[in-house]
């Protein structure tokens, strides 16, 4: 896969002096779904806005398909579709006219068959001649997606697409996003729902206070979620991990009162039984045993708190 969006050392300082983006580096691969995960005010929307041209960049460079977003803005923007966080639609216009407007605005010639197809995909076809103001909140969100897809973009930005929508619609949205990915559209999704990132993303980028804290393959993160730890408290503190227990890669606490063993819950053999037997054989007496499981949420919260310090 090739890089389709490249963000290099991008800073954004607002007129009041607030630094919303602090030297962001991010490379997005063509055809992937990447989730930008972060709390409110982390800089997710600002980052998207700068790439899409809504907000100016203080310094740094952004390219899309190798083209600069400033000097080649026409070609770049033709490739990009944006679904904003807020439901921003002309209330008195019909769904189809809103979508036609978007297609024309992005320089594409009329193609009613394509627009009908988009509306069908989003279950909006029955409402094509309805005024936007008569639609439910969920339907309006679909109209926003239809408008973003009207000009056949190669890169789609979805800013909190499922904020405030019910579970059923959220699952529908996920299916739509997955379908678009199959059609070759690169999708950048911002969300603060971890389950959303888990459900549909290929990669996850964690952003907080204007900084990217982590960019990682979702499966790798899932594998990290699969790790479990056993903390074994000892009756008598040990000075070092006994040599016969070297294979377990145990970590001795600073005061020697506890050993921590990390294992993979997904593997066939966890090694727990062997460890407990070997601990006894090594003459170590156990006071207590505790287990801990790390989740994506733990990783996320940990990273965000670490970044805030």
């Amino acid at each position, binding site marked *: 896969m090739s890089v389709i969006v490249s963000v290099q050392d991008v800073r954004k300082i607002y007129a009041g002096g607030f630094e919303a983006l602090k030297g962001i580096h991010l490379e997005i691969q063509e055809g992937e779904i990447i989730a930008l995960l972060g709390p409110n005010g982390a800089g997710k929307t600002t980052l998207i806005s700068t790439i899409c041209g*809504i907000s100016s960049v203080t310094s740094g460079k952004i390219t899309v398909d190798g083209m600069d977003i400033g000097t080649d803005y026409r070609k770049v923007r033709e490739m990009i579709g944006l679904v904003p966080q807020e439901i921003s*639609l002309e209330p008195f216009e019909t769904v189809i006219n809103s979508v036609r407007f978007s297609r*024309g605005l992005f320089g594409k010639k009329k193609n009613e068959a394509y627009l009908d197809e988009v509306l069908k995909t989003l279950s909006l076809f029955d409402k094509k001649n309805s005024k936007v103001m008569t639609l439910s909140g969920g339907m309006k969100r679909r109209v926003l997606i239809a408008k973003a897809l009207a000009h056949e973009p190669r890169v789609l930005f979805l800013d909190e697409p499922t904020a405030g929508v019910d579970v059923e619609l959220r699952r529908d949205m996920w299916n739509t996003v997955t379908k678009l990915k199959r059609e070759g559209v690169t999708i950048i999704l911002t969300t603060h729902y971890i389950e959303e990132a888990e459900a549909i993303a290929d990669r996850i980028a964690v952003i907080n206070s204007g900084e990217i804290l982590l960019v990682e393959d979702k499966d790798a993160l899932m594998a990290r979620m699969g790790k479990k730890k056993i903390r074994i408290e000892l009756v008598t503190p040990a000075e070092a991990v006994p040599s016969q227990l070297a294979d377990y890669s145990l970590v001795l606490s600073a005061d020697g009162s506890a050993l921590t063993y990390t294992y993979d819950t997904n593997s066939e053999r966890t090694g727990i039984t062997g460890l407990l037997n070997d601990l006894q054989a090594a003459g170590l007496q156990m006071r207590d045993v505790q287990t801990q499981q790390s989740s994506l949420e733990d990783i996320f919260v940990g990273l965000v708190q670490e970044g805030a310090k």
Partner: protein
Amino acid sequence: MNFQAVSAIYKFEMARFFRTLKQSFLSPVLSTSLYFVVFGTAIGSRMEAVGGVEYGAFIVPGLIMLSVMTQSIANASFGIYFPKFIGTIYELLSAPVNFLEIVVGYVGAAATKSLFIGLVILGTAHLFVDLNIDHPIAMMCFLVLTCLSFSLLGFIIGIWAGNFEQLNLVPMLVVTPLVFLGGSFYSISMLPPIWQTVTMFNPVVYLISGFRWAFFGQADVSIGVSLGAISLFTLACMAFIWWIFKTGWRIRS
């Protein structure tokens, strides 16, 4: 030039006009009729002809200008302010369009609407007074130029405005007084000498004077000066809008 985009903006804006066509048509017809009843018949019948032109006919160019200027500002300012207000401006800012295409789309639609209203008023005026247009082509040129230049001004006001009150502030406090004091209902020569001098600082005087010349072949200022003034005003508005899009003033964070 992204013609598809210009056409999309223009059609979208015109659709707003057609949705309220009855109001768009009836409102100017009604207000013009009232002006003619009050100024043309009730007051005008007691007034002398101005430069050989019956007073009822004399006020027609001023009445058209009054409506065209205020409608141009209202249409263009609302056209760009509304997307800002409801948030749909994001689409415009992220689209592959430059400032000229946006301006042509929005200002073109606003100017078309006010041109339509200007022509409706002209037609209504014919029902009340006998009108002879000496220079019809010049009349149309002045009318179109005024629609365009005041739509450009309206576009600037729409971008500047932070709320609906501000949207009405400039038309109410600046434009309407300038239009009323710009010779809509009288000839500058009817004023005392000192006010004749003061009124020459009112840019609207040049527009109304030029427009009236196209109708009756007589003007308060020379036709060349009128044309120069309206061209200068149009260029100044264009330059300001170019600066707005270059800096992102009030539209891009």
